[in-house]
């Protein structure tokens, strides 16, 4: 199960379409707070987390989730893709970083990689 946390509807639809097609069940959260609630309630295998979201941003949400469930895999998928951003996100605890816009294959790869390990 993959939780997609993004305030952008287009992004939500794209991720849902791609991941469901790849065989994952997809949960959608539109802001950080929602993401934290859903993550703790549903225990998704991987969370695809946007950063710039209204209210609680993605990094804060990730911090809270990791505090509760350190083993939960979180991929930061952000349009903040300056050179320094990737390091910033990894340092904040992300398991992987996906820059927007992304190739659909990359999305599936990163999710597969993260779901394969713990379940295997």
């Amino acid at each position, binding site marked *: 199960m993959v939780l997609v946390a993004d305030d*952008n509807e*287009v992004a939500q*639809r*794209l991720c849902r379409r791609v991941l469901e097609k790849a065989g994952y069940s997809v949960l959608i959260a*539109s*802001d950080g707070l929602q993401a934290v609630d859903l993550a703790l309630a549903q225990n998704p295998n991987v969370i695809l987390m946007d950063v710039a979201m*209204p209210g609680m941003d993605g990094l804060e949400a990730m911090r809270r989730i990791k505090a509760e469930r350190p083993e939960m895999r979180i991929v930061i998928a952000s349009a903040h893709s300056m050179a320094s951003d990737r390091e910033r996100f990894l340092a904040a605890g992300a398991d992987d970083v996906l820059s*927007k816009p*992304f*190739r659909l294959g990359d999305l599936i790869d990163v999710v597969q990689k993260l779901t394969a390990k713990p379940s295997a």
Partner: protein
Amino acid sequence: MLPGRGPSGVVMFRRPGLVRRATPYAAIAAVLAIALATGASSLVVFPLFAIVVLSVALFDDRPQLFAVGAASALAILVISVAQLGPTSNLATAVFEVTVLGVVGASVQEVVRHAREAEGSAEKKVGELESIDHRLRLTLEAATIGLGVAMADGRWVEVNQRLAAMLGRSREDVMQAGLLDVMADTDRGIVGDALGKLARREIVRWESEVEQSARDGRRIPVALALAAISDSGSSEPLILVQEADISARKRLDAMRDTVVAVRQVIVTANSWDQAAPALLASLCTHLDWDAAQYWTVEGDRHALKLRSSWHTEASNVDGLDDPARNLSIEAGGGLVGRVWQSGVAAAMDDLAANDFEQASAERRAGLRAAVAFPVVSAGATIGLVELLARGVKHTENDLLSMLSTTGVEIGQFIQRAETEQALRRSEADHRAIYEHSPIGIARVTSEGELLEGNRALLHMLEHDLDAMRSQAWPDLLRAYDQAAGRARLAPLLAGITDQRSVQVRAATGGGRWLWLQLTATSIPDATGRPEHVLVMVEDVTTVRETQDRLAEALDSQRSANATLEKLDRTKTEFLSIVSHEFRTALTGIQGFSELIRDGGLEADEVRAYGGYIFNDADRVNRLIGDMLDLDRMESGRMSIRVTDVDINEVMSDVMTRAGSSSAVVVEFKADLDPRLPIVAGDRDRLVQVLSNLVNNAVKYSPDGGTVTLSTRAEGAFALMSVTDTGLGIPPDEIGHVFERFRRVRSGAAQSIPGTGLGLTIVKQIVEMHGGKIWVESAVGHGSAFHFTIPLAKEHATPLQRRHA
């Protein structure tokens, strides 16, 4: 044999008297016996008796005479009686006795008188002899030279003292005569004096003269000549008294020297000026013929001749020979030795010494020398050498006097040098003061202006009087005020240490200057401020430049801050813009990839195409807005101001917004029909209103009313777009006009937008010279108001559009 040796001595003394006494009686007895034996008449033996009596009478011993006479008379009578002669014989005998008695008495009387006369004469001679003796003793014992001379000067008598004074034996003096022992220079006047005494024109003559001793030295004496009155002789004897006054003379000379040296020193300004006079003084008063001054050269390895003097009479040219300007090594010659030892020394006779250095002096005919060091601060800085043609015995007291003089000269040189340095320094300071480009004021400790230099008066365009009475007190007050502001002490409070303050002051010509005042107090000997020096600098140019610089610096700083902020904003902006673009591109890229890969249903393709279109459109708008904003902010966009009927623009925008089928809001217009024409760019104003109306619609997702209103507000038209939508949270309302600051909380989060619209709106309004602001309450909606200036020629509300 000495008397009183014993009893036998007494007997021996008496024996002659006894013999003398007994002898006449024995003679009488003998004559008597003879007469009796021979029977000679008394007349025959009478002469014998007479001889005895006369002999006794000659001895002037009256009792003896009487006794002898009586004995003789008795003997005559015995003879007369014994011969039993006639009575005439007795009478003869009586006659004889009488004659004997008379003769004896007479002779005795004569003898007595003779004896008495002889005794008194002897006594007289004795008295005379003792007087003469006493006189001689007195003469010899006298502490002065005494003598008796004839009127022509030949000595009758001189005492030992006088001879000793002249360094001669008495016999020498006696042979020489008074005039011969006089010095050449004084012989004339003494001769004159003797002449006058001889002619009895005067009875006494006194003077201080010089005599020459055997060795040629000149001896000053106090000479007194007195005529001894002798009525019997035609020419009087002269009593000569001489006192050796050389000691006094020397003391006098030394005292005079000291006085003269001081006088020279006191009146001279520098040693170079004083040296010749001083050397001359020493020579004149101490009776030397030449003098030289040597200085110790700076490197202290040699002496150099700096000054010399000699009497006019002295032929000492050799001393002035330039060749002598050679330096003297320490220890060389008298001068060198004195330099080395630092102690005054003399050489009574150069000829008797074998110093190489003496050769020049010897050539110059100089025989005696004395040298003393000139001492300053314990160090020998120079030497004075005195030279004389004759042999001169230099006493120790002269040496010590010269040593003292050397110290005095040293002190003088030091003082003169100090004074000269002071004078030079004073002159320097005076020159600095006079010619300084900085104004300098000398102020009493009470603040009164003592003097001000040219620069000060010129700077403040005052003369000294005006300066003193008016400008200076003003300046002082200004100083104290400025000092007070700077938390400094007032100018006259105690010792100041070069504090500076800047004050504003008016010149006599009415110009205003910035003056920098720097006060320095000059302490007196006790350390209290005696007066204050105030430096006055015209810092107007500096100050103004400074002010301008500070201004420029300020603006530079703020420009820098703006630039920094701009730079930050730019980075931030870039980050935001790229984020916006990538977000939009995420959909575009992702869905186009899906479509490209195929295998989609037709309605899926259509839907994805729609997403792609929307995001592409959004990107396009974003680019458009950004370019607009950039042009506006960089000033490259200008507005073309024309007369605009804002009510008409409002209606137009409202109509277009309402035409959209998606719109669920209700539009209301509240336009002031009397609103005058405004001055604006119609296209831009349409852009502003469209933006505001679109926002109002967007943020009213649940429908509601959007009201557009206009009215005149002074010289402006006030336009409002009011909705009944979501409203803006209070923490965001202050940022709505900033770039990319979109309200995205709650229900607003999914409302699309570039985040640049309101920023552009604000720019456009401000370019028109208007203002924009917003009122809002969450859940109740927002009201955006903006003003645009009215067109000037239409600025009266009565003028109608289309009129």
